[in-house]
């Protein structure tokens, strides 16, 4: 019997097999981690992704996406689940859980010692960070002798003149309108959940409507507009303010009446690497040292409270859940919006055109 391969081909093949073998022997499927990209994704990759791969040999592929819930839906519909970990905020968790698009999380594995605060433990999602939607404003454009205190002042175009910007969505804006109208932040949803409350919010929005120069849709717009001076007062995600200040732009954040929201991560049903995803979730979001490191880079709080032991006060003060900041704000109510988004959005679209 003649050998089909020459001895040279065999030895080459052998060497190549030796090179591949260690990788093949571990059979490590990657974990596909989807997030909203940008600085956040880079931070997670640096603080969690690279060390995770070093320790477990499982590579982490970061994927950037513009939205989560529509993607999750389409992946489930076409039975082509591309992500192992998907971002889910607010009402996205509720909608996705109702539709059975998410795997239940194994909390005994992720957090057997119950270190993570209750608010961060959901059956189908883990709270990754808390961030705030707050007013950022140009400190050099505030009139002499006045202090900008919050939503009442945002609505007060006479004493605090200047171009303004809000996000193009009813979500949070209606709550802010009620706060400007005198409702206490803690009661905002009790009022908004009634017909009179909803009408009151829209009526208050009528007052500010003509003074809004831009209705922003992308998170990068407000910092841009504030930096160039095209807008003096805008809502933005709190994490975007510190980089502006670091660049020397005279801008500050107002925590009064801001909305605290949670950014969560979930595992979609039929994810290709569920075990790897669980390991990564535990590795990244239940390790206080890592969470402190993330918070140093981007001022977003996490839910393992031990992280504060590892965080200097100068960073801790910038976090939405710092004692100095947390009581001035209200918690975004995901259930309310999951229930009412469609109808309110239709009313909002009509209102925008009047």
């Amino acid at each position, binding site marked *: 019997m003649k050998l089909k391969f020459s001895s040279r081909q065999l030895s080459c093949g052998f060497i190549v097999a030796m090179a591949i073998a260690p990788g093949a022997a571990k059979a490590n499927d990657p974990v596909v981690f989807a997030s909203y990209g940008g600085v956040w994704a880079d931070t997670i990759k640096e603080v969690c992704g690279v060390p995770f791969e070093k320790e477990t040999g499982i590579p982490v592929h970061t994927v950037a996406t513009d939205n989560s*819930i529509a993607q999750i839906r389409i992946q489930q519909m076409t039975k082509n689940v591309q992500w192992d970990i998907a971002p889910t905020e607010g009402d996205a968790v509720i909608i996705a859980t109702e539709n059975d698009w998410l795997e239940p999380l194994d909390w005994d594995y992720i957090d057997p010692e119950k270190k993570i605060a209750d608010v961060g433990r959901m059956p189908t999602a883990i709270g990754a960070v808390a961030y705030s939607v707050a007013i950022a404003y140009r400190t050099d454009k505030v009139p002499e002798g006045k202090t900008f205190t919050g939503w009442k002042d945002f609505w007060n175009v006479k004493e605090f003149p200047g171009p303004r910007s809000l996000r193009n969505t009813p979500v949070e804006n209606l709550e802010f309108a009620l706060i400007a109208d005198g409702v206490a932040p803690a009661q905002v949803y009790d009022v908004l959940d009634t017909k009179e409350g909803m009408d009151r919010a829209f009526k208050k929005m009528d007052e500010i409507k003509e003074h809004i*120069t831009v*209705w922003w*849709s992308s998170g990068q*717009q407000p910092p841009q507009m504030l930096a160039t001076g*095209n807008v003096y007062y805008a809502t933005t995600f709190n994490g975007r303010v510190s980089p502006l200040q670091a660049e020397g732009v005279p801008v500050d954040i107002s925590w009064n009446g801001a909305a605290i929201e949670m950014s969560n991560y979930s595992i979609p049903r039929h994810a290709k690497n569920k075990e790897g995803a669980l390991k990564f979730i535990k590795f990244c979001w239940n390790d206080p040292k890592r969470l402190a490191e993330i918070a140093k880079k981007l001022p977003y709080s996490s839910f393992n409270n031990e992280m504060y032991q590892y965080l200097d006060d100068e960073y801790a003060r910038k976090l939405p859940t710092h004692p100095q900041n947390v009581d001035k704000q209200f918690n975004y109510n995901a259930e309310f919006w999951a229930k009412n988004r469609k109808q309110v*959005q239709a009313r909002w679209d009509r209102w925008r055109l009047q």
Partner: protein
Amino acid sequence: MGLMPPSLLRRSPVWLLVPALLFMAVGFVIPLGEVAQWATTLDLYTQFFLPGDPYRHIMIDTFTLSVGVALLTVTLAYPVAYYLTRTRGVSQKLLLIAILTPLWVSVLIRTYGWIVVLGRTGVVNTFLLAINATDQPVQLLYTRFAVYVAMIQVLLPIAVLMLYSAMASINDTFVKAARSLGASPVNAFRHVFFPMTANAVIASGILVFVLSLGFFITPALVGGPNDVLISNVIQTQVNETMDWELAATLSVILLVGGGLLVAVLVAFVRKALQADLSGGVK
């Protein structure tokens, strides 16, 4: 092409279309069918045509804007393309480079460029303040004006190239013949040159119109509160409220409306140029 007997190919060159048609079928027609499946709720259509429906208002606004952009872009592109046919050598190549290079820069970056130029602390306002034409920055950004400017700038190279390629193939002896028969330059242009470019004008106008219908980044970034376009609405419905039935319905209405409008306009223009297009060389 060795699969088909040469006689068949010679008889019916429509076989050459098959690869492109297959590609279109798989990449365009089938996905369109999938979207149309979501657009079968009759209620949403009737709702659209009720008075006061905000989406109809936005849809009409989008169409008006797109028609305006198409008209202005083609009007601006025509003289540029004509000039391109009249120059030669280095100056022609330089002009071509100047027109083509922006096409290779991302739309996002070009739009951001306008934020820098038109903003309160931007180039235009700094100039106006410096020559004391005004003592307060003029609101140029976040206006319908800014949307027009940015969209025309993005679409201009496309119109120029289409018109140029049509004009370059026109033999200039026709115009010379008209002149020698006593026509004034204006009449020679109007009755001889322009009708020969009419098809290209229509084609580039349609292309610019259709492209503008789909714009959403540019109006979102430089437009004001009243510059919401139908593509922004559809995007919100797909991504945030997940009302895919509404999104698909609006998309179908957009497609059908756009197609109808184009057909009507083309027929109208062809009729208007009937006298000049018939007879002689086409």
